[in-house]
């Protein structure tokens, strides 16, 4: 029986010729990731159990991104704990303020993950790296601790859903619209425990940032991982960047899928997820011009804080003003993206429009800081979750959208089709 892309990577890392869905395996890890929220819990587990060494100090990444630059004393104390651990064990990829960016933008950018690698991260959006043809999945802090000690993790080999992408997306339809459309179609548990494998001739129209965005939100459909095949777009991005040895895996012709969906990218429209689940999607055509009044717009996050995202937002906002009463917060995801955006003049556009530009941080996405909502307030946001209380008060609301839709909405003050701005 043939294997999917995900199954082949798992088999290779478990030292097996083949694996099948449902099989429990132990596999060698190429990268173990944690952040300033999850690493402290992992370090507690590591130390309480008497561990005294890590399996490989170059295969662990600790990125201080959620509440940094530290939002309060407790957050500072947590980062201090991780910093001390990183110093003690000489963790090569410990990234603190000055170097840090949002982990799922930073690891691909620094070449710490790439085609064919197996990565676990104590952050649910670790599934992002599947965009590069990696098997990458979110785990908890105890799994992270076990991974740091042994360099291995156990996996139940997932079955898969195949998404055959065809056609070329229209203007203002981005990776975000593709994944929101898919989540709207299959639901927040539509891919529970499974791989989402994206393929088809349409992927050539998706740039690397679109693919990172799509794989990033696989978890919002409950998936174990999302993955793309490696093509020239991937190779162009990873060549000279990826520090490991890239290995390209393709699904067997006779690979078995639980379901196969064909999605015509040419028919998709800019899509928005209404509160309080990412599956509550509507296209901009289904939203009245003054139906959803917003108080805040967030453009950033591990989902949509990359350079092409900022360019898409700037293209809409150029020469325009953020609507009265709307706070617009732009958060480039890494220091490099920040510099690129600055040199390209995007900050002039944002600041002249009345937006603010923040240092890289997860900040408001998870209701941490840097843009918390009060009761009754609404945000349109390029982030990934719109659960109850996600960005602040339990009676606030988050509408998930692409950078183009978010920027257009910031300008009008209502959720708006970017073509109409």
């Amino acid at each position, binding site marked *: 029986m043939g294997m999917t892309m995900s199954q082949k990577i798992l088999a290779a890392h478990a030292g097996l010729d083949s694996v099948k869905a449902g099989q429990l395996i132990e596999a060698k890890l190429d990268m173990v990731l944690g952040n300033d929220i999850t690493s*402290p819990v992992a370090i507690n587990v590591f130390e309480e159990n008497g561990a005294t060494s890590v399996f490989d100090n170059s295969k662990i990444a600790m990125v201080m991104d959620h509440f940094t630059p530290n939002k309060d004393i407790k957050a500072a104390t947590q980062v201090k704990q991780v910093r001390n651990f990183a110093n003690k064990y000489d963790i090569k990829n410990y990234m603190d303020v000055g170097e840090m960016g949002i982990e799922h933008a930073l690891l691909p950018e620094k070449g710490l993950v790439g085609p064919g690698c197996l990565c676990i991260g104590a952050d649910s959006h670790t599934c992002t790296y599947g965009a590069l043809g990696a098997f990458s999945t979110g785990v908890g802090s105890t*799994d992270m601790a076990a991974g740091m000690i042994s360099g291995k993790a156990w996996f139940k080999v997932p079955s898969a859903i195949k998404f055959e992408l065809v056609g070329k997306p229209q203007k203002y339809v981005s990776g975000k619209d593709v994944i929101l459309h898919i989540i709207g179609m299959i639901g927040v*548990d539509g891919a529970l425990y499974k791989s989402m494998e994206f393929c088809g001739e349409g992927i050539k129209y998706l740039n690397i940032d679109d693919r990172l965005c799509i794989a990033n939100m696989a978890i919002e459909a409950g998936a174990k991982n999302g993955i793309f095949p490696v093509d020239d777009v991937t190779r162009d991005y990873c060549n000279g960047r990826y520090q490991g040895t890239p290995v390209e895996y393709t699904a067997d012709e006779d690979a078995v899928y639980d379901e196969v969906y064909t999605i015509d990218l040419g028919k998709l429209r800019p899509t928005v997820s209404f509160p309080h689940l990412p599956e509550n999607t509507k296209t901009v055509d289904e939203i009245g011009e003054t139906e959803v009044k917003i108080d805040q717009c967030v453009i950033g996050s591990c989902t949509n804080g990359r350079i092409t995202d900022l360019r898409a937002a700037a293209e809409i906002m150029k020469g325009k003003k953020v609507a009265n009463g709307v706070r617009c917060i732009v958060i480039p995801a890494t220091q490099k993206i920040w510099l690129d955006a600055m040199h390209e003049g995007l900050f002039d556009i944002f600041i002249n429009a009345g937006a603010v530009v923040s240092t890289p941080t997860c900040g408001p996405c998870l*209701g941490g800081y840097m843009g918390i909502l009060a009761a009754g307030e609404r945000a349109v946001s390029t982030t990934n*979750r719109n659960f109850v209380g996600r960005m602040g008060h339990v009676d606030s609301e988050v509408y998930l959208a692409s950078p183009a839709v978010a920027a257009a909405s910031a300008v009008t003050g209502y959720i708006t089709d970017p073509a109409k701005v």
Partner: protein
Amino acid sequence: MNVKGKVHKFGDNIDTDVIIPARYLNTSSHKELAAHCMEDIDKDFVNKVQPGDIMVAEKNFGCGSSREHAPIAIKASGISCVIASTFARIFYRNAINIGLPILECDQAAKEIKEGDTVSVDFSTGVITDETTGKTYQAEPFPEFIQNIIKKGGLIKSIM
């Protein structure tokens, strides 16, 4: 091992942001996390919950973030077991890894009501609603996972 307690009932897609809001993730203290467990969906939960009580929810329990703080908060609040139709996969792993007993049983999850007294026999997977007298059979864990549980959690199983 058996547990018995009163049921706290929740619906579909209970996410980790309502189990433990991110505003409390600036600590890893089990006690502090437990003090805010379920706060954004049931403000009174922490006052009502008694040691040994059982949480019952429907599909996709624990969806969202990978924060292990979520099963930690539930366990530290006194909950002895979570029964759901299905669990989100990271929550499922985390619960096993930290030793919070969880059981998948769709029928029990749908039929058991808030305030019922329920007992669970982990050796057989039998769930008994003592209020209604009905019994349910939960899916047994695969042997591999039973071994992790027997050894006292993931870390003890690898060291």
